């Protein structure tokens, strides 16, 4: 881990916490990072700060300084837990690492998470993907539509990005594996439980599957996190297909309507009688049917093209503070 990554991990990881240890949330970290940037300091300097330095150099309050010190002081203990997960094939990817999903930085700006827990080849993040979202309970028609549609987008070279849950998520993932395209899953709960599946483990091992999560690998399900991870699916993909949505409630609905507002990527919606789907199409989602050819680029404004060139980044030195600010942000 480079020193900037160490600092981000110490400030933001929810591993190794107990009463009195409050890791920074994405927004809090962004504010702190912005402050550092304005002082031309890198996060790694924080590693050597004493309590007084926080107060004098970055105008931290007493309370903040105590909170920061306590976060830094868990360094030795935290390393044990990180190492345990590393042995299991899970590692931390921070905004200071070149493996960090650049697409998220670009589209989500300061709201993108300071770090992810990841299992698999982060190189998959550079591949173009189509997102698939939908409810957990599905009927055979949904299954069939999902399989067919994934096959179509796969034949155009798109991998699948999904939420790793039951229902549409897992159906689209397995259809992608069958079609031989990569799968990225932004999980909302326990990565470890997911990793009991030997088929999935083989996928990760062979570089076909990547698991990403903002919550620690043992975390249970949390609605807020599930909502949040929908953003990553939209921000990661060249276009996201809604297979089945409730109307006015649920994660699928919330995610799709948010994207329609924020325009991270085009939203495609299965054109059928589900009230949720109807409403999403009315709100601007692009209707798709069995006839659809799977081309997500039709209405492409800012989604990346598969062949889009990657900017060179060097591990450990690429922490560009501006990356973390919202597109309109100034400092």
């Amino acid at each position, binding site marked *: 881990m480079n020193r900037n990554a160490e600092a981000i991990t110490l400030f933001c990881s929810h591993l190794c916490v107990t009463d009195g240890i409050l890791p920074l949330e994405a927004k809090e970290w962004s504010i702190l990072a912005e402050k550092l940037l304005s002082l031309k300091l890198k996060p790694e300097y924080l590693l050597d700060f004493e309590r007084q330095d926080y107060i004098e150099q970055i105008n931290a309050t007493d309370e903040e300084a105590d909170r920061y010190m306590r976060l830094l002081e868990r*360094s*030795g203990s935290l*390393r044990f837990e990180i*190492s345990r997960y590393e042995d299991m094939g899970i590692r931390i990817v921070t905004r200071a690492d070149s493996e960090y999903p650049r697409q998220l930085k670009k589209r989500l700006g300061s709201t993108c998470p300071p770090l992810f827990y990841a299992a698999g080849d982060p190189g998959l993040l550079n591949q173009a993907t189509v997102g698939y979202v939908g409810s957990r309970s599905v009927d055979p028609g949904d299954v069939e539509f999902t399989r067919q549609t994934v096959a179509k987008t796969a034949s155009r070279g798109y991998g699948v990005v999904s939420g790793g849950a039951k229902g549409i998520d897992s159906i689209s993932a397995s259809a992608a594996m069958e079609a031989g395209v990569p799968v990225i899953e932004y999980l909302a709960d326990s990565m470890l439980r997911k990793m009991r599946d030997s088929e999935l483990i083989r996928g990760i091992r062979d570089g076909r599957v990547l698991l990403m999560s903002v919550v620690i690998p043992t975390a249970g399900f949390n609605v807020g996190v599930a909502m949040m991870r929908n953003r990553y699916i939209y921000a990661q993909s060249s276009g996201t297909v809604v297979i089945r949505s409730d109307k006015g409630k649920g994660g699928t609905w919330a995610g799709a309507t948010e994207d329609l507002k924020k325009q991270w990527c085009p939203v495609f919606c299965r054109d059928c009688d589900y009230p949720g789907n109807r409403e999403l199409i009315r709100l601007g989602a692009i209707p798709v049917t069995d006839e659809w050819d799977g081309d997500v680029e039709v209405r492409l404004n800012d989604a990346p093209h598969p062949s889009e060139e990657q900017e060179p980044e060097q591990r450990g030195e690429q922490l560009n503070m501006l990356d973390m600010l919202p597109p309109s942000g100034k400092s």
Partner: protein
Amino acid sequence: MTIGNQAIYREASEILSQTYGADASFRDGQYEAIEAAMTRRRTLIVQRTGWGKSLVYFISTRMNRNHGRGMTMVISPLLVLMDNQMDFARKMGICCTALNSRVKRNSEERAEIIRDLRNDRVDMLFITPETLMSDEIQAILPEIRIGLFVVDEAHCISDWGHDFRLEYGRLGRIISGIFSNVSVLATTATANDRVVNDLKAQLGGDIHVSRGPLTRPSLHIQTLRLEGRADRYAWLLENVPKLPGTGIIYCITKLDCDVLSDFLNRRGISARSYNAGAADEENDEAIRAFYENRIRVIVATTKLGMGYDKGDISFVIHYQSPANIVAWYQQIGRAGRNLKDAYIFLMNGKEDDEINHYFIETAFPSRKESTEVMTAIDQGSGLTRPELEKSINARKKRIENTLNFLENEGFIRKEYDGHRYRYYATPARFTYNEEHYQAIMSIRRHELEQMHQLIHTRECLSRFAVNALDDHTAGDCGKCFNCTGRDIYPDLRVSDASRKTAAAYLASQKMSIEPRKRWPDGKTIRPLLMTGICLSRYGDPGYGEMVRKGKYPPPGVPRRFDDQLVTKSALVLEKLIWENGITHITFVPSLRSDLVRDFAQRLAEKTHLQFADLLEKSDAPQQKEMENSSFQCENARSSFRVRNTQMPQKTILVDDVVDSRWTLTVCGFKMMECGVQEVYPFALADSSHEEN
């Protein structure tokens, strides 16, 4: 002395003089190591026992705490924290405690230590790697602020080291990735260049190395060529009483420790055994008795080596030759810490190599074992250990080692499901790094060869040893057998009378056979066999050797157990027969030969018991091809049948060689199902492997 930071120097010196008085000064290299630790560098100290490594981390701890920083965690394979070290710590105002498997779970003492840790009341914690990695301690880590890591006996984290341990391997990975705002101090008294370089690479970064001469001037060294147990016992019997003070005798196996200490006690030399097989309480008591000089000798496996600090040990004797000079030098380093002279004897003979080779060759699981276990886990979904034992025909211990190995290499992980651990594959692609393991094994073979060279050299033994540790500064010691040309202690000898005493004792050794109490699936075996007797250890001098010759005679000689074995067996069984009113002798049949039947018949004649042919064997693979309990038990169950005949009430059940005890247990069980009330197993020899 190089002083890079005046403030650190002032503070460190102040603590030193508060502890030792105004005129105290740092020993060569001590201050530099403190400064490195205080400036958050990685530090490696390679210095001889007694150099004062602990002073470095005691002062560093004091300074960290003065500045409100986290506590010091000393990771050490130590056994008991010695009082003098505690006193030393207290003198410096350090609140210091130890946590290992001896501080019993759920005890008030342990609860209090945990409480103190969580409340940041402990300045320095000594902890074993096993305890540190336990779920219990991992769970409270978030509440502990760690300012300094000390890795004691750091050579253990290098798999090039003689004493590599799996838990240490994990520790190595943790330490090498530790965040740069925590100091790490690694110490060892025994590391050659290869290990030092490996440690430097593992600790990484800008590392400060403190390395000094390793010679221990107080040691007088002599090697003793003694073939066979009887001669070694005789030497100890005759010469230990002459030696001054207290000492350690190192043996390789647990059983050797127990038997030798029994022998010494019977002959008036107070001794206690210390080994991994004994209960913690017994080991603790042994250590205490030794520490307080209530016994003269502690007979120990290498479990007693590291972290043991008794200043007045005046002799260390190796009952067998260790596998390498580094390990040996470390063990003899326990002697003479606060004495002017200490005496070191290294017994050796050609039979020592067999066991050393065995440990070298089995250090890593084989490609076959690893692949089998890996494939099973990869294809299963959360296998448990018993499930693996059922599907893989390998020794339980080997499966366990293989699992540890695969987990340590990051190919598998385990998860507790509330009842037991389940094993899952990780995404890491399994590769068997044969070249690396072969390279390590070949180095260990080379090190064993170096040990032979030490035994046969005419050079100074002390210099030869430290040269092997890549310390080339030493001159001749002028004290060892090779330097002086005479015994290092006056009047050493072995008389024929002692030889006879030793031989008679060894010949009288018999062992009990505890029947199996549970089936492989964990269910209790009912009815249960009685405790029986085993005459010898297979292949051991005396009866053990006779058993081997009976089974595998030279070409042209028929297979038959010697009459001496019959006579001796009758003798050891006499009391058992008489006390329990045993009337019959039966035997475990074989399809391949009548060797055991013949022996049982002769034994029946000799003991005047009735010979009974009660069991029938069907065609089945040989039991010795079965490698673990599940396979052994299953094989035995399907191999034997009880004849339809009159059953006696009480019988002895004879077999030639006992290993897993499943054959005897299953045969006895089946006979009891058919009406026998008491079955007493008897075997001529025990061939079970012993692994420390």
